């Protein structure tokens, strides 16, 4: 299976460095190392590498560079290190680490450049080259795209193993006992006679040593943490109200700010009058910021009230006047000069369409807000020669650069402290709130300014999920799907998102077709074409990105063709499956759900969908009943191929959460803009799924593949199309646009 390997030095190099009072173990970046990653961040004498383990007199600290926005990333990373290091997870500290270019997220680059298409060719080479370079230049420390597990699976364990073996070597010298005689347990090296040395006692000795490089990672049979249910390190705090999030951060002399932004998304401020606001209790100032006005007060609520009281005149936002115009812009994008990519082009689609009766349909996916439970917020303090930022962010390096520019200091003088996030779903890949806090803070030197968005501001000024449209054409022959031509049009998410960071992204955008072009199905004549619409509303990465709309389109198109062929949705997918791993995923949900056709009796039905996204094949079967109160979702069966399930409890929780997320938005969520203003600004009009609508969700993780992958995103894309298919089976209503509540009612 290739899962147990001696570390290949060519891939990466374990390093260690002396740090104040001890030692750090980690990984050197391969190929072209950036400058010393920790310089400036640590005290004199501390040195350079991407550390995962720090040991000093006070104990062991596991450094977990991938941010945690609720997906258990801290926990998984800590467990991977502990697996080899032999420490008790409850007895160590976990530190998210400084923002640094050396925390290079290796798994994201290949995924972003994912045109590892079924067809080799110059387009693919060009794409991979272009995106790969861009990612490198940005030196991203980004948590997104389910990369946490993939990136860390070997590196973190290797760092733990190297640290362990080096500690044993140091102990061997101190005790005069051969290394092979020593064992490790619970943070101690133990000699045959029972003498035990705690890791912290060895820290100084280890600091001067070459780290042991040739370590063999433990075999799966020896694992104590991986694959076993774990208790998340922060769970106790989260259930007792003692976990602090960004919004809870406090520091001496801090003031509270709120903003009034242009009601239009992306609109500008022409003039304002804060006279009334400044009269209000506790209010101390008003400042112009990007897109609007900030007021400063001594309490969050007072700041909210005062922001409301600001009078302003606003400029126009650059976006179509209404939703009809947004949709019309997409409709007009299916033309040759807007073609962005056609990486999948099997057989002869044109010829096949000429020779059969063509089935056609159009599908739509709306703008969606990220709406994590915790509204975005940031604390910024601009001091003499030093700026501090405290915020929950997935892009600490971009934050650092943005704030440095505003404060007029160099990047190294900006210290970003990443705080626990109350969800993200991609929301915290943007940093407007930090910039606005910094814009106020530079005018209040020395004073920590906390800016908290109201829910309305958070939702109305979210950079939403892309709006998208797809057109399907296809033919069937002899009870089989013969030709499937799918065109997808959307504005480029990556261009919109990176544009806000001042970066231009040349070349085709893989996300326009992600979740469609790379599906593991062998249809004789099969083509997926991406069309890049002109920018409409500004958009950003939303949980599963392009696949969140494209998984819906792709499966629905396939579903309609299978129906036209008179085939069974599960059988035909199994017949078409071109990859044994994907077929096993389908077989798993077929078996779990006891699939024997889409009908489940009168007014009941089920549907199946499968999407490969972020390298994970994930299939779902959704069962519904058409009750007198509306559609009720009864059960969902999910299977996903992830190579290795690190923590089965957290895995199940994340998969269930992804299904709830996918179903909930498909049921009843959209953001619509009228005159540039979002018409949904709070959870009364953007609800998602609630407890009483939540089905039983039965989850299975498959471990047939060699590559370990994260499961944060993959359960989202197949949920909506499986639900649409189930509703069709139960009611005969074919849903081609989200949210489905436009066409059917759901029981509540």
């Amino acid at each position, binding site marked *: 299976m290739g899962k147990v390997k001696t570390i290949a030095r060519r891939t990466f190099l374990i390093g260690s460095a002396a740090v104040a009072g001890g030692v750090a173990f980690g990984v050197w970046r391969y190929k072209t190392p950036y400058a010393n990653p920790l310089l400036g961040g640590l005290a004199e004498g501390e040195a350079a590498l991407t550390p995962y383990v720090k040991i000093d007199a006070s104990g062991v600290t596991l450094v977990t560079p991938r941010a945690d926005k609720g997906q258990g990333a801290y926990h998984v990373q800590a467990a991977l290190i502990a697996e080899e290091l032999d420490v008790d997870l409850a007895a160590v500290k976990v530190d998210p680490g400084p923002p640094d270019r050396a925390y290079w997220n290796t798994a994201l680059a290949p995924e972003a450049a994912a045109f590892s298409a079924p067809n080799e060719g110059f387009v693919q080479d060009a794409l991979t080259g272009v995106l790969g370079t861009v990612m490198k230049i940005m030196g991203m420390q980004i948590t997104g795209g389910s990369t946490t597990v993939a990136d860390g699976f070997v590196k973190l364990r290797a760092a733990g193993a190297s640290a362990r073996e080096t500690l044993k070597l140091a102990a061997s010298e101190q005790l005069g006992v051969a290394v092979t005689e020593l064992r490790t347990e619970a943070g101690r090296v133990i000699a045959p006679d029972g003498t035990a040395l705690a890791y912290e006692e060895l820290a100084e000795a280890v600091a001067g040593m070459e780290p042991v490089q040739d370590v063999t990672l433990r075999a799966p049979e020896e694992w104590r943490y991986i694959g076993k249910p774990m208790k998340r390190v922060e769970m106790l705090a989260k259930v007792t109200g003692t976990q602090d999030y960004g919004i809870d951060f406090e520091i001496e002399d801090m003031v509270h700010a709120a903003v009034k932004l242009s009601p239009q998304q992306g609109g500008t401020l022409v003039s304002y009058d804060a006279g009334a606001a400044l009269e209000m209790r506790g209010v101390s100032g008003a400042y112009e910021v990007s897109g609007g006005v900030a007021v400063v007060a001594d309490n969050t609520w007072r700041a909210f009230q005062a922001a409301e009281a600001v009078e302003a005149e606003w400029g126009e936002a650059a976006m179509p006047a209404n939703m009809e115009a947004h949709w019309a812009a997409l409709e007009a994008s299916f033309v040759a000069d807007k073609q962005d990519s056609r990486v999948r082009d099997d057989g002869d689609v044109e010829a096949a369409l000429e020779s059969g009766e063509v089935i056609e349909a159009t599908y739509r996916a709306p703008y969606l807000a990220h709406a994590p439970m915790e509204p975005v917020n940031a604390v910024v303090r601009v001091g003499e020669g030093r700026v501090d930022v405290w915020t929950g962010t997935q892009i600490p390096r971009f934050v650092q650069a943005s704030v440095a520019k505003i404060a007029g200091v160099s990047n190294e003088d900006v210290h970003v402290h990443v705080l626990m996030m109350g969800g993200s779903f991609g929301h915290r890949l943007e940093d407007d709130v930090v910039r606005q806090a910094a814009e106020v803070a530079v005018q209040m030197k020395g004073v920590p300014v906390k800016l908290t968005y109201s*829910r309305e501001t958070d939702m109305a000024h979210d950079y939403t999920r892309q709006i998208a449209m797809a057109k399907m054409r296809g033919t069937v022959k002899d009870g089989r799907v013969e030709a499937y031509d799918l065109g997808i049009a959307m504005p480029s998410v990556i261009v919109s998102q990176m544009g806000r960071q001042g970066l231009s992204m040349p070349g085709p955008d893989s996300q326009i077709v992600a979740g469609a072009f790379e599906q593991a199905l062998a249809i004789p004549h099969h083509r997926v074409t991406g069309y890049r619409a002109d920018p409409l509303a500004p958009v950003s990465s939303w949980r599963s990105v392009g696949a969140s709309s494209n998984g819906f389109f792709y499966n629905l198109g396939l579903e309609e063709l299978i129906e036209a062929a008179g085939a069974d949705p599960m059988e035909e997918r199994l017949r078409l499956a071109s990859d044994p791993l994907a077929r096993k995923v389908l077989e798993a949900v077929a078996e779990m759900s006891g699939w024997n056709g889409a009908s489940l009796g009168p007014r009941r039905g089920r549907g199946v969908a499968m999407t490969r996204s972020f390298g994970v094949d994930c299939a779902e079967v959704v069962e519904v009943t058409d009750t007198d109160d509306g559609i009720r979702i009864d059960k969902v069966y999910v299977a996903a191929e992830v190579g290795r399930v690190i923590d089965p409890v957290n895995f199940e929780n994340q998969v269930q959460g992804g299904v709830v997320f996918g179903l909930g938005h498909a049921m009843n969520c959209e953001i619509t803009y009228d005159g540039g203003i979002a018409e949904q600004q709070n959870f*009364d009009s953007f609800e998602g799924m609630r407890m009483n609508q939540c089905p039983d969700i039965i989850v299975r993780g498959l471990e047939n593949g060699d590559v370990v992958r994260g499961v944060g995103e993959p359960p989202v894309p197949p949920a909506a199309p499986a639900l649409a298919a189930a509703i069709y089976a139960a009611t005969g209503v074919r849903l081609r646009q989200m949210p489905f509540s436009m066409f059917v009612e759901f029981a509540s």
Partner: protein
Amino acid sequence: MQLTVDGATHDLDVEGEMPLLWVLRDELGIKGVKYGCGIAACGACTVHIDGEAVRSCQVLAEDVWGAVTTINGLGTPDAMHAVQAAWEEHQVAQCGYCQSGQVMQAAALLAENASPSDSDIDEAMSGNLCRCGTYPRIRAAVKTAAKTLAEG
């Protein structure tokens, strides 16, 4: 103005129309109570007043009619309430931000109805949004907590 919160009495000088949520968070520093929507649509701010679950974003400071219990007063990491212990056992939280409201809602439900049916649970909990989608675990944890409480 006087408020009793988690067993302690506080003298406060705040506007009568300041929502209890912000009195708790910003005036008393009780941060376990969370802001999610401000319009009674999410339940993140749920606390108890005289044992009843209320949305603290909707209760004005001047209208608080009894003793307030927050998540921080319900139990502590060393002495958890049965609901919190069940939440820990089932590893309910993902981001965790909604969970203090969920726990408070569930604790009030169980105080009133010692053995809630599935639909009792769904009904009582449906005002509490969880954007991370932890509902299946919440359901299971409520049942575990009910059992623990029944066993005394």
